[in-house]
């Protein structure tokens, strides 16, 4: 018989709620105290840890599942009697067990031990509540565990149930490929399965120091600005050309506006010439 150290009082309230939802337990309608959820958790989920695995199955099916499960459990127990109890493992065993799940753990020290224990617990947990899907195939435990851990342990339990069913279907074929993970292969898998890519901060905006933000640029900001300026020079001639064309155009329009435009022009010219003449005369008059 496996011994699971289940201390729901240590779980957080949202965790309890999602766990209960995953076990198809009806939650209280209004927000209740944590104690209520702990009680519900203990009531329903510790039942599940006992031999009767799923409340939905009929008795004879239950017995069949029981037999299969107990057989599997016995096998597991023969191999690793302490495998399912993270708290009972020594530091080295804990580290080795985590390594088996593909988790490269750091030194197991006083401060890190509880974290790693919890991680191992989370990795072991998906082995049990899978019966809710009604698949009842006990032999898929080890395979689906290996598939599960790569995506981390999600916090939303309903999500894990549906994801787990996916894994079971894809078990015979290739593992499920995540497009997002393919696109950004360097991101670490997070617990919620959500990865946020950071938008590149705007260079030089709001006093952001440019030199630390963009170490991968080959050119300095000055050269970039110069290049930007140079890019503008190319269409500059085009701009001047357009300007000249427009000037001529406006001139012609003005010229064509009045048919008697000749006279104003002539008058203008006369005025100008008169102006220069008077100037000339005044200049001559002065000395």
């Amino acid at each position, binding site marked *: 018989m496996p011994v699971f150290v289940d201390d729901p009082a240590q779980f957080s309230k949202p965790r309890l709620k999602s766990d209960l939802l995953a076990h198809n337990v009806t939650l209280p309608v209004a927000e209740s105290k944590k104690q209520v959820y702990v009680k519900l958790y203990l009531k329903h989920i510790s039942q599940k840890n006992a031999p009767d695995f799923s409340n939905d199955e009929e008795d004879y099916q239950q017995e069949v599942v029981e037999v299969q499960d107990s057989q599997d459990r016995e096998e597991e127990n023969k191999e690793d009697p302490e495998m399912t109890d993270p708290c009972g493992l020594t530091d080295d065993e804990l580290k080795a067990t985590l390594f088996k799940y593909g988790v490269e753990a750091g030194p197991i020290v006083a401060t890190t031990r509880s*974290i790693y224990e919890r991680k191992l617990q989370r990795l072991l947990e998906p082995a049990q509540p899978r019966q809710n899907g009604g698949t009842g195939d006990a032999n898929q435990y080890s395979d689906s565990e290996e598939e599960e851990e790569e995506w*981390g342990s999600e916090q939303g339990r309903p999500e894990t149930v549906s994801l787990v069913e996916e894994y079971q279907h894809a078990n015979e074929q290739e593992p499920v490929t995540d497009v997002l993970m393919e696109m950004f292969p360097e991101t670490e898998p997070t617990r919620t399965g959500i990865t946020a890519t950071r*938008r590149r*901060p705007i260079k030089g905006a709001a006093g952001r120091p440019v030199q630390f933000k963009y170490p991968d640029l080959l050119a300095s900001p000055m050269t970039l600005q110069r290049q930007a300026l140079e890019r503008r020079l190319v269409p500059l001639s085009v701009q001047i050309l357009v300007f000249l064309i427009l000037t001529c155009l406006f001139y012609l329009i003005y010229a064509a506006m009045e048919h008697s435009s000749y006279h104003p022009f002539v008058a203008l010219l006369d005025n100008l010439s008169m102006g220069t003449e008077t100037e000339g005369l005044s200049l001559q008059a002065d000395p």
Partner: protein
Amino acid sequence: MSTTSQKHRDFVAEPMGDKPVTALSGIGEVLGNKLVEKGFDKAFVVLGQYLLLRKDGELFTEWLKDTSGANTRNATSCAQCLREWCDSFL
């Protein structure tokens, strides 16, 4: 998509030296006091914990939430801050 705060930028811009734990992004006075109670009085001690967990952001956020009662946002911000600091100076 997240933009960094001024505190984050200040921390990541230079070696942390003897900066207090409240200099970390996401760690304010309340969380800082709780960490000091647990013995993490300087930023480098928290860095030590981050390194012990092999620079795993997920595990670190979990540890921080347990130790100081931080929420996910603050813990993630602190983890990201430390990660970037390590990228530059470690």
